[in-house]
């Protein structure tokens, strides 16, 4: 985080004002509208790179159930990374791809994509995470301050998700047990049976 980046507020405002095109549905086969792979390629070109097909394959929509939220998150992150400050800094393509491939995969497992636009803490987490992965920090903050704030944001969210997922696993167990206790058809009256 040695490099001083843009003011955090500017990035947060950019995320809050994400255009509709970057909130559109990622394309999967016949459904959806945005080919996320093409948007990532455009971002790389804007940064002065020549995109290679192989690393872009990770952004092809194959399985909507698995990838819909991830690619929707990637799309929002490409809008953030297309900010003038990032483009002018000319970060290496592999660093940009690493954020979009790896960090966004992790984040999308925890957060519904739209929250990176609509919720203040998730906007801040995404903006700080992207800066940190590129070795930068918000303008006016020391590296330690920037690291502290990012850690707090992400650890609070991860702790919340962990609590929810533990509770969900416990509840799923209870549901399975409750259903197993009822003998087949020893349940309740229906006037017709299927």
């Amino acid at each position, binding site marked *: 985080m040695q490099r001083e980046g843009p003011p955090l507020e500017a990035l947060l405002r950019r995320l809050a004002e994400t255009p509709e095109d970057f909130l559109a549905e990622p394309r999967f086969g016949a459904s959806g509208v945005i080919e996320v792979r093409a948007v990532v390629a455009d971002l790389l070109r804007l940064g002065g790179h020549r995109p290679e097909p192989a690393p872009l394959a990770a952004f092809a929509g194959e399985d909507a*159930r698995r990838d819909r939220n991830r690619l929707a998150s990637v799309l929002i992150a490409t809008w953030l990374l297309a900010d003038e400050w990032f483009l002018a800094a000319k970060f290496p393509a592999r660093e940009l791809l690493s954020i979009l491939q790896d960090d966004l995969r992790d984040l999308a497992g925890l957060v519904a994509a739209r929250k990176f636009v609509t919720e203040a803490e998730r906007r801040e987490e995404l903006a700080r995470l992207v800066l940190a992965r590129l070795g930068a920090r918000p303008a006016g903050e020391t590296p330690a301050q920037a690291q502290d704030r990012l850690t707090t944001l992400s650890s609070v969210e991860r702790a919340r998700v962990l609590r929810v997922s533990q509770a*969900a696993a416990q509840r799923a167990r209870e*549901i399975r047990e409750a259903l197993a206790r*009822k003998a087949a*058809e020893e349940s*309740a*009256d229906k006037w017709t*049976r299927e």
Partner: protein
Amino acid sequence: MTNAPSETITDAERYPTLSAAGRAMLDFLREHPRAPIYRNESGNRLTAEEVVRVRAFEQEVAAARVGWTPGEEPPWLEAFVARALDEVPFYRSYGSRPRRLGDLPTISRADLSRDIAAFVPDPVPVDRLINFRTSGTTGHPLLLASHPVVAASYLAFHRRALRRFGLELQHGRGQVGVVLLGLQRKCFTYVSVTPTQDECGLAKINLHPADWRDPSDRAAYLDALAPEVFAGDPLSFAELLTLPVHVRPRALFSTSMALSAGLRQRLEARFGCPVLDLYSMNEAGPLAVYDARAGGHVLLQHRLYLEILDTAGRPVAEGARGEITLTGGFNFCLPLLRYRTGDFAALRWSGGEPVLVDLEGRPPVRFRTRAGEWLNNIEITHALQPCALARFALHQSADGALRMRLPAGTDAGEVAAATARITALFGAGQPLHVASDPQWEDKVVQYTSELEGAGL
């Protein structure tokens, strides 16, 4: 799935609001001298508050408009989708709410079969969950989460279906509302009362002679019960036609299998009442009822949206056949988001309401005629409609030969008529073997083929 022992429950839990009159009805059903051997026990499980809730739901269903404007999604859908994405663990992984329903993935029976717990919304209390099991024909047995209120709510849609035929249920205290008929070697049988219908009686019985002390008791018992409605499937109704009953029900509900026009006509002539062919499934309850005036199955549920999709999950052209895909439903333990049913139909509009046309419970299978022409299985269904066949299954071998399976005891005249119609459809000289099957399973895949290109 854990191997938790089955619950032992008491009558107080089976019938929480049972009155003395309700108890008398249960005794009458169980202890009648010609009663069958009841194998099981069950009940409505409704608390007093839930009886009120189910009655209110019946009024809501009665007053509701069913359907939507063609090309538009119904107004309730957006909030339903948002809630499902928020509250249902399986759907939560989809991420944010899309602008269009069609941007969400579809699910199938295999997904429900894998882990039903992931489809139960977070706010649903676990303690009152019940289950319904279905074996199905697709290799994915299902254990579905439900609730006594959901089971009792079926009647709201039955009433709506009856109203299309000018009927209101009338039986109440001291009378039998419905007898559910089965015809299986092994069948779950029990008696109950329906609290929302003033504790009229409910009996689920098996017409198989093995369930009776004397087979002649069947007709005598049914006459004694004199139910307002019989519910069953084409197999049990075909058996009912063989019994010397005098009972005059006000309606018959046919579910589970396709009802041929021939069998419907025989039932209507014999009992002098309408036969309602219901399209119903454990996953979503009664979806639609056949109404010839509308040209197909008219929808019954006001909070259920249907899409018709092709094999790639795209909407078919308006009016074309495809897979019925459901979003919504009244089972609050199992909200459906783009559930591919495995059933096929076209969706058309008649008098402003959506109608399922040419409904078939299985993916289409093509058959090849002697002249090499492909026939959709729906054409075979149409050709055999006039025949009063309770069930049939048709298989085409790799060499083009046909094998038709019929339940044992099918009327010889009907077999001859069906044979003639198949021959007329496929062309003279078509090899056709007709087999009478005494071991007819509960659910059978009706159309199968070994020919390459038979699947659509």
